[in-house]
């Protein structure tokens, strides 16, 4: 039973405390949506979990302090999908997916059977067999996103952290991606993904963590987190929140009339 425990995580960038004492405990099989307005600290929270920015606090997987691990070892526990999807060179799809195996084999070692199997599984799962030898730079945005997810899957980690994986995808690809994350969680992984689409977050995630100014404003089941009150407080918008088959529908409709007290106080 894998449990990811994030305790009192804080990160300071250029003198500003961007993430401020956030704690979260998630077990395997969970798909957590990380929501909050622009600048709330979602990306920095994910990067702090990965050790990509200097941070204080503790990130543990089954009791093991991840900050204490060597970088390659940590990469066998946590996979990361950054927001940036540009690939610098016209490498083949297969070569990009194979990068996911870097933390697993020694320098200059040829890929093992296990490496090949993981690459094949990721390519098949993301339905990339037809593109295998194509250059990633020649693919459409949706196809490219699939290649990068396959790369992260080939890493075969118990935890996947994704930064705005829905950005720039059409509704069909967005829903397919949420479905995939849900499946991956059901297979026993821990998924945390930041996103702005509150309806998709409500329908597909089993938990939400709402960040506001670097702090955890609310955390729990989507219905508990996504209330008119919190949306007004955090996003300063009025929202229509309705129940529909399969989950909530959250549609911001106008700017809130109520002024955010903190802005004046």
């Amino acid at each position: 039973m894998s449990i990811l425990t994030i305790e009192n995580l804080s990160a300071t960038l250029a003198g500003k405390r961007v993430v401020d004492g956030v704690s979260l405990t998630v077990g395997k099989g969970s798909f957590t949506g990380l929501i909050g307005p622009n600048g709330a600290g979602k990306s920095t929270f994910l990067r702090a979990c990965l050790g990509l920015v200097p941070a204080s606090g503790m990130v543990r997987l089954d009791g093991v302090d991840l900050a204490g691990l060597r970088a390659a070892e940590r990469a066998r526990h946590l996979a990361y999908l950054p927001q940036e999807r540009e690939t610098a060179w016209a490498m083949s799809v297969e070569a990009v997916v194979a990068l996911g195996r870097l933390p697993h084999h020694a320098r200059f070692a040829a890929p093992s059977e296990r490496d090949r199997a993981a690459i094949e599984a990721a390519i098949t799962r993301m339905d990339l067999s037809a593109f295998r030898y194509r250059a990633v730079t020649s693919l459409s945005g949706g196809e490219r996103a699939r290649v990068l997810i396959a790369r992260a899957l080939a890493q075969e980690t118990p935890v996947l952290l994704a930064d705005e994986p829905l950005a720039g995808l059409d509704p069909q690809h967005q829903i397919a991606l949420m479905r995939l994350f849900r499946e991956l969680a059901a297979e026993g992984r821990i998924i945390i993904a930041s996103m702005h689409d509150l309806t998709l977050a409500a329908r597909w995630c089993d938990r939400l963590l709402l960040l506001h100014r670097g702090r955890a404003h609310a955390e729990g089941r989507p219905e508990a987190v996504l209330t008119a009150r919190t949306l007004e407080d955090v996003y300063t918008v009025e929202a229509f929140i309705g129940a529909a088959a399969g989950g909530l529908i959250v549609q911001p409709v106008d700017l809130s009339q109520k002024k955010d007290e903190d802005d004046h106080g």
Partner: protein
Amino acid sequence: MTIRSHFRTTLVVLAAITLALFLLSLTIGPADVAFSDSLHALFGGGEELLVLVMQEIRLPRALLGLIVGATLGLSGAALQGYLRNPLAEPGLIGISASASLGAVVAIYTGLSALFMLALPLMALAGAMLAVLVLKAMAGVDGRPLTVILTGIAISSLAGAMTSLVLNLSPNPFAATEIMYWMLGSLTDRSMPHVWLVLPFTAAGWLLLFRLGRALDALALGPDAAASMGIDLARVQWLAVAGTALSVGAATAVTGAIGFVGLVVPHVLRPLVGAQPSRLLPASALGGAALLLCTDTLVRVIAPDRDIKLGVLTAIVGAPFFFWLVWSHRRAGL
């Protein structure tokens, strides 16, 4: 796997071309000698004068062409991969300019006339100074943009100082000597130059070849690479130190030779599936082949005019680059 064997074939073909051009470089020159005689003389057989020509003039020249060309190709590929920028080349991070400055100061002060190795040693010192500045400025996180900007600042400063030295040079002869040195050439180098350049370039190559995996991962961006266990600070150190050692030493004995480090990785990239780790050995071979070829052309085109190697690489390289930009633009439309 088919792609893997394709890569091996590419390397074998490049190695064969390099070897052929190396032999060509050994056997072409003002002394008109038959191919077999010159190879025989290379190993100490035959006429005494010819043995001297082969061992003391042709061999160091061909060896330097091989070493310096490989250095320029390899470091160009490594820097393009590290900086994720197809326009990167060894000159970009200020190593060549500072090495040149060191050499120019050696000529200006007359040290180079006092003992032969003063010039290359001063040039190496210049390159190392550039590395210290790069390290101090670039900080610990190893982000490429800071390295590029610092490199441009170093290049500009070293260029300005070189102009100042030219400006202050006591007589036209010193100025001419400096100008000619800066054009870049393999003429009149000897075995001590080879022995001087070899340890530094070998050390630099070793560092640059260790970059392969990291450069592949960096194709997806610094954050993705770091999340796959790549230590960005170490990558920066390998790229900068490897370039400084190898290109610094190369510039120290041949002067600044442009375009090889820029053009060779560009041409070879499609042949290795654009994978940065595979581009390293391919570019090293390609650079060696291009420099050996150009250095042979220098001797064939105008044997008595001493056209400088650096001039010819730029004359050949620049139009080629026009073509490259043009074809890229067409592909992009």
